[in-house]
């Protein structure tokens, strides 16, 4: 059923637009949102692998009747192989990531419907639109199409921050947009350089042109294009120098939307990173550059997380630091390491979503997230405290959770590739991550309760507890049976190298 491929993007967009129309009809919005959110992870499971050409415009070579009517300088050249339409390619990797994204989107929408008293149509619209945009980023085999959905995803992230009425959200949103308006057009300019060199924006065509020596891949046009696209990637994924703005965005959003936002970031990181890797892997210094930025992200993320006092900010910086692990997997560049990096990406989406929703209950209970003002909340809700603790174990890489499996794979691949220093840094950073997490956990749950701490909401909704529990169980299952995930990743990686 190849027709389902575009539906993965169309359904959430259509649902978002419909929800916006149903303003103030709360029950209708609730039912529609939940139904579509359940459908989201199911579509990728039903769909077949393959390519989808929009408008049915397959490459000319697949249509011999049309090819004969065209002039010979078209039919004889590489133009006959190039893709004239926007192409979506759907493989095992896309299936895995769209499924995981669907799960996180479902739980984010589910908890937000139950935690916010007033169901807001625009908020749901932004969440669905962002999910659709990120899905399209994963599917698209076209760098310009990727740029469009990258901008839409950025606008949705800004919208989500604007809708969640936290302190200073407008300031953070404007900062993000100004930085994004420097990063976005430069990405477009880089795409322009590649387009000028190759004449096509389809990734398969660009790779074909490079491999067949139709263009000089070391020409300065290509190098400048590479630099600008890499800069756009840094902005999109929140690697340094954009780690401060990215973490402050997480801390300004409501906790369940922060869970969704971080999954957007990770998926964007993976989608654009793989595109850069596919096109520019002939450059000898590509891996060095990716490694340098990932190491800086890990070090700065974790050291800045230690000295913060706001739990949401701590989680934001930790999420940025964990991105560094994925980058290291890509940067080492062996089959094992890329598999490990992508596996880590899946785990990070799930674990960070769990932690954001879990610590979000603290914000829901007390309307505060400053560690100095919190304390003693374990008596309020011991179940959630234990589940969050287990989530922290998963993030730090304690067996038997999934974080352990992927981090072990990364360390192993670094050792095999002859970089023992990277594995030492990885172990060190994960120890410090654990320390940071325990510090936050202690000051929120274990230390004696301050006198002036007032409880705003008494009871946590059952749906939130359910989401945390299900995410934790998924983490445990992946930790016990890592083949479930790696079997989907390794065929893709084998095709990549």
């Amino acid at each position, binding site marked *: 059923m190849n027709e389902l491929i575009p539906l993965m993007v169309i359904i959430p967009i259509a649902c978002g637009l419909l929800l916006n129309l149903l303003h103030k009809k709360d029950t209708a919005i609730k039912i529609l949102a939940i139904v579509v959110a359940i459908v989201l992870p199911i579509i990728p499971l039903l769909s077949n692998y393959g390519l989808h050409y929009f408008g049915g415009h397959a490459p000319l070579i697949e249509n011999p009747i049309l090819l004969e009517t065209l002039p010979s300088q078209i039919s004889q050249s590489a133009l006959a192989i190039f893709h004239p339409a926007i192409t979506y390619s759907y493989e095992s990797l896309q299936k895995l990531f769209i499924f995981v994204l669907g799960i996180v989107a479902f739980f984010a929408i589910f908890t937000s419907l139950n935690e916010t008293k007033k169901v807001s149509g625009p908020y749901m619209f932004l969440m669905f639109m962002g999910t659709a945009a990120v899905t399209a980023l994963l599917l698209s085999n076209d760098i310009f199409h990727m740029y469009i959905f990258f*901008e839409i995803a950025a606008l949705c992230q800004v919208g989500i921050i604007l809708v969640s009425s936290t302190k200073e959200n407008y300031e953070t949103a404007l900062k993000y*947009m100004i930085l994004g308006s420097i990063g976005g057009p430069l990405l477009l300019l880089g795409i322009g350089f590649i387009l000028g060199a190759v004449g096509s924006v389809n990734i398969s065509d660009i790779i074909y042109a490079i491999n067949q020596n139709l263009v000089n891949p070391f020409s300065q046009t290509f190098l400048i294009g590479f630099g600008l696209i890499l800069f756009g990637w840094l902005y999109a994924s929140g690697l340094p120098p954009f780690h401060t703005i990215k973490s402050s965005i997480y801390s300004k959003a409501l906790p369940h939307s922060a869970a969704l936002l971080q999954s957007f970031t990770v998926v964007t990181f993976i989608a654009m990173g793989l595109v850069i890797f596919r096109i520019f892997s002939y450059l000898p210094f590509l891996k060095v550059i990716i490694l340098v930025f990932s190491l800086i992200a890990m070090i700065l993320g974790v050291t800045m997380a230690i000295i913060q006092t706001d739990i949401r900010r701590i989680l934001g910086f930790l999420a940025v630091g964990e991105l560094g692990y994925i980058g290291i997997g890509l940067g080492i560049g062996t089959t094992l390491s890329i598999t490990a990096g992508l596996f880590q990406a899946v785990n990070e989406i799930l674990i960070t979503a769990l932690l954001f929703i879990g610590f979000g209950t603290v914000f829901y209970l007390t309307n505060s997230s400053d560690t100095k003002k919190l304390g003693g909340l374990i008596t309020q809700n011991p179940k959630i405290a234990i589940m969050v603790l287990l989530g922290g174990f998963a993030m730090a890489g304690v067996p038997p959770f999934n974080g352990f499996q992927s981090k072990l794979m990364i360390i192993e691949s670094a050792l095999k590739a002859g970089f023992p220093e990277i594995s030492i840094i990885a172990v060190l950073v994960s120890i410090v991550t654990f320390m940071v997490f325990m510090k936050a956990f202690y000051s929120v749950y274990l230390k004696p309760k301050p006198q002036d701490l007032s409880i705003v909401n008494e009871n946590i909704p059952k749906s939130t507890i359910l989401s945390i529990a299900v995410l934790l169980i998924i983490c445990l299952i992946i930790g016990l049976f890592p083949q479930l995930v790696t079997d989907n990743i390794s065929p893709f990686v084998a095709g990549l190298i």
Partner: protein
Amino acid sequence: MIDIVIDTQLASLFTSAAFIIVGLFAAIFLDNIIKKIIGIAFIEEGANLFIVTLGYKPGGIVPIFLPGMDAEWFALNSAYPLPHALVLTSIVIGASTLAVMLAIAIVLYKKHGTLSTSEILGDK
């Protein structure tokens, strides 16, 4: 001495570079939010102009296939239409980004009573 003939294509590439440089200068150094946003609009315009210029063909024709044209002659003489299709989308994206930024700027002006970035967006 190398003779560089400044034809339309080269000149328009220089124009787009000038847009991007002026826009980046404004977005980085000017303090007023509205002017920063105007600068950002210029960066986007420069990138669009650059991409359209790539499709230009000196002495070519507009890429519209009219009945009666010879296909081979058309393929040799028309401008490259793919960049035009891309730019159409990115113009609209630029305009919508601008609108959202202006809306946020208005809200922030109501809150702080000033348009200066260093006062609104500084560290607190």
